[in-house]
């Protein structure tokens, strides 16, 4: 079952370029539990850390759903994690490996670390649809 959630982002810079929409089709191996935390990054040097340009949340419904986010046109890398236990953060083990499902735009995967910004980045110009498969 697919559900669309529209999220208006508060992080839009005033006077920014024309608003565009990214439609995220998110799939999770842990259906129906917790919330998705979506971080839209526009800077390579801080990706995928806490300093994102835009953020959004959505309750997890089923195994796949669509979440729409509005951002100005631009180049973005998107990180999504699923907060299973409702503590509002991405849990990780002793060395920082996430212990909750995560995924990135272009389904980018890292090697010995998170993916690089350029491997996950997409150019948004008007409407854009992305599939993100979370893995745990």
């Amino acid at each position, binding site marked *: 079952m697919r559900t669309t959630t529209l999220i208006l982002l508060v992080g839009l810079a005033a006077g920014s370029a024309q608003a565009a929409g990214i439609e995220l089709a998110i799939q999770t*191996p842990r259906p129906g539990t917790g919330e998705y935390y979506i971080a839209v990054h526009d800077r390579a040097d801080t990706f995928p850390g806490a300093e994102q340009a835009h953020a959004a949340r959505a309750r997890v419904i089923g195994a796949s759903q669509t979440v729409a986010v509005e951002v100005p046109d631009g180049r973005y890398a998107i990180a999504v994690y699923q907060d299973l236990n409702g503590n509002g953060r991405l*849990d990780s*083990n*002793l*060395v*920082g*490996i*996430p*212990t909750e499902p*995560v995924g990135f735009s272009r389904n980018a*995967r*890292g*090697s*010995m*670390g*998170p993916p690089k910004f350029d491997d996950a980045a997409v150019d948004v110009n008007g409407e854009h649809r992305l599939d993100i498969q979370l*893995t*745990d």
Partner: protein
Amino acid sequence: MHRREFLRYSALGGVGIAASGPAGPLLAGDDWLAAYREGRRENAWAIGLRSIDAERLEAPLEVLHGQLPQGLRGSFYRNGPALHELGGRRYHHWFDADGMVHAFRFTDAGLTHRGRYVQTHKHRAEREAGRFLRPAFGTRFADMTSLDNPDAANAANTSVLPHNGRLLALWEGGSAYGMNPEDLGTDAPVVWSDATAGLPFSAHPSIEPDGTLWNFGLSVSVSSGQLILYEIAPDGSLRRAQAVALEETPMVHDFAVTQRYLVFLMPPFHLQRERFADQAMSFLDSHRWEPHKPMRALVVDKADWSRRRWFELPAGFVFHLGGGWDEGQVIHLDYERYPDPGIVADFARGIMRGRADTEPSADVTGVRLDMARGTARQETLAEHSEFPRLHPARVGRRYRYRYSLSVDGEATHPFQNAVRRLDMDAGAEHRYRFAPTDIAEEHVVVRKPGLDDETAAWLVGTVLDTRAQRTRLTVFDAATLADGPVFEAALPYALPLGFHGNFAPA
């Protein structure tokens, strides 16, 4: 399913690491299978690197000599790489293949053997695909998938430990896999706690006489190497775990536990993390030997892991430590020292083609770390030694006798051919030499029921008879080791050469 498939990567490994040899991704259809077949024709010992295609093996053993000692009843478990070939291709390193766990049952009715592959994620996925998919310790085929999670490459091929009612199939770079001790069925990767999920748990845990299990793992990300420390209670519950950041990322296979300390020897054989992250080379080939740097020794206070001291020793390479003890401000330990990592970089690769151009040998090396003065000293105690073991009651304590394999006289193969007992106090040794065509494998120390004396024990191990092409099981009385085995039995087949095991008394 895949656990924690994300941000970091940990030390892969069968037994240690080195980095030279052919670099870069390898193409399909390379010639290793053909080279090995040719090697088999030339060298009878190469049967020790054969691949086992069957998922299970099962057979009774034929008694060759002596009687199974009264009191020696239970199961002897061993682990080792066995699926060396799949889909017409052969791995390029001894440490790569999926582990097969073996159980030798010692009963009043005789001896039986059962072998079964550990059903790791990797093993199931590759069996289904009919080909190798995941990068291995020393092999990266060009068409292998990338890896963002160490357990995706977990071969569970290095040791097996009975613990708290289950078996732990152990590797170096990922989780332990839980197994059923009776039918050798695989459960799942062991999760000691949420904070340690998916982290490496080395193949050399140390169990003190009170049942406390200590272990470590080396976790690697593109930005750092971290030593994970574990303390586990006899009931299997995790008492403590912590990550200690390292400046460099050495290959660390084993450690020593003394009454007050955990001691790690870190050879200057360093993972080039960014090179490995580029995914062009195997884990092994991403290492660099830096002999201008020292071997570093890290001492961690068991009572307070934040109390740590570093020492420096001459450059060298090591897989295995015999043991250690502390006395006042001085820590004593010994290890099997190689002058360089050729054993893992060259030897363990060449034998996969049925060839041995070198015969690396380790010497028993005694180390004295003075905590008051901050000094480290080492000296060679004996030549030609590997696979050291202690009496279980002496782990973390002062020991007099150290059991291991050795090389003695002529052999038709480049492996060990003798079992040795070294008297650390007197410097004397007892040894037994097998036939020149026999390859000795690890012999574990099994205490005689109720006795803590270091020689009140049996040594139980395997021998690959390359002439008869059968694996034998041998039992020595530790007190009269030089007299030869008190009991020998043989399988109807040859098992591939394995690594480590343990005995679970009935």
